């Protein structure tokens, strides 16, 4: 176990949350770069791509805040891991860039597997 599990847990949550906060913030000024990661079948939906991007961004912000809160951490961490794996799976041709998402998914996995009895959230008032 880490010598300071509370800080270690917070570092994992903050790092993972940042990975979910940066894209929607960046998409405000450069939406096309992030739309490029959407697969064809998503872009083919009868909804404006920008609306889809904003909705996805809202989901990312919600997950980031949930991760930062630490409340029932396994749920947002699991969702985060699956989202990251999905993004990689749907953009394998961009693996040279997205390989990092697998590393970030491992952070999410660490939060999922973090032992409950010493989890900082269970110790916090």
């Amino acid at each position, binding site marked *: 176990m880490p010598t300071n599990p509370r800080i270690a847990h917070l570092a994992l949550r903050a790092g993972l949350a940042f990975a979910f906060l940066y894209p929607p913030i960046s998409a405000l000024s450069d939406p096309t770069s992030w739309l*490029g990661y959407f697969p*064809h079948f998503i872009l083919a939906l009868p909804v404006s791509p920008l609306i889809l991007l904003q909705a996805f961004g809202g989901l990312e912000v919600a997950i980031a805040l949930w991760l930062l809160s630490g409340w029932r951490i396994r749920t947002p961490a699991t969702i985060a891991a699956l989202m990251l*794996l999905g993004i990689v799976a749907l953009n394998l041709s961009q693996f040279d860039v997205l390989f990092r998402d697998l590393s970030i998914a491992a952070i999410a996995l660490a939060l999922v597997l973090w032992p*409950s009895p010493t989890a900082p959230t269970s110790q916090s008032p």
Partner: protein
Amino acid sequence: MDSRWLGGAVVIIIVALGGWYVFSHPSSPAPITETRPVTDQTSTTTTTTTSTNMPLAPVTVMYTDNGFSPASVTIAQGQTVTWVNQASDKMWVASGVHPTHMVYDGTSKSQHCVAGYAGPVPLDECAAVASGASYSFTFDKAGDWKYHNHTSAADIGEIVVTAAPAVTASTTTVNAH
């Protein structure tokens, strides 16, 4: 939820994903080499050969709903490639890697896609064009240049640019006898 099962499931997904990528990721498709037509010389009696720098015919790459075709093209330095959008969606041809587009000329999209940019000509359409439109770019640098559609980054292709050879033009004379 039992964290052991959950963790195991995520690990299995990661391993499966990696395996799938390694074994299903297609190796670079056989490049299509554009060659100049060779004149039939069987009926000639005299041949005069001169070396000139003749312009090379442009190469066309189609963009459809299935991606770029051909996905790999081999051309000579100085040759032009024209991408034609025949897809139902928009096309924005750009150098790798998404989303910075820096590989070909070393400048990023935020640098070379702005008004007043005066640097080297980027391999970047800098705008999404609708079906029916086209984009042309002349490759002045030899190398293996990956590109993609910025609006659908999973669609990729490559242009292999070989160093410019001396182009030989042959003049033939048909035997009058």
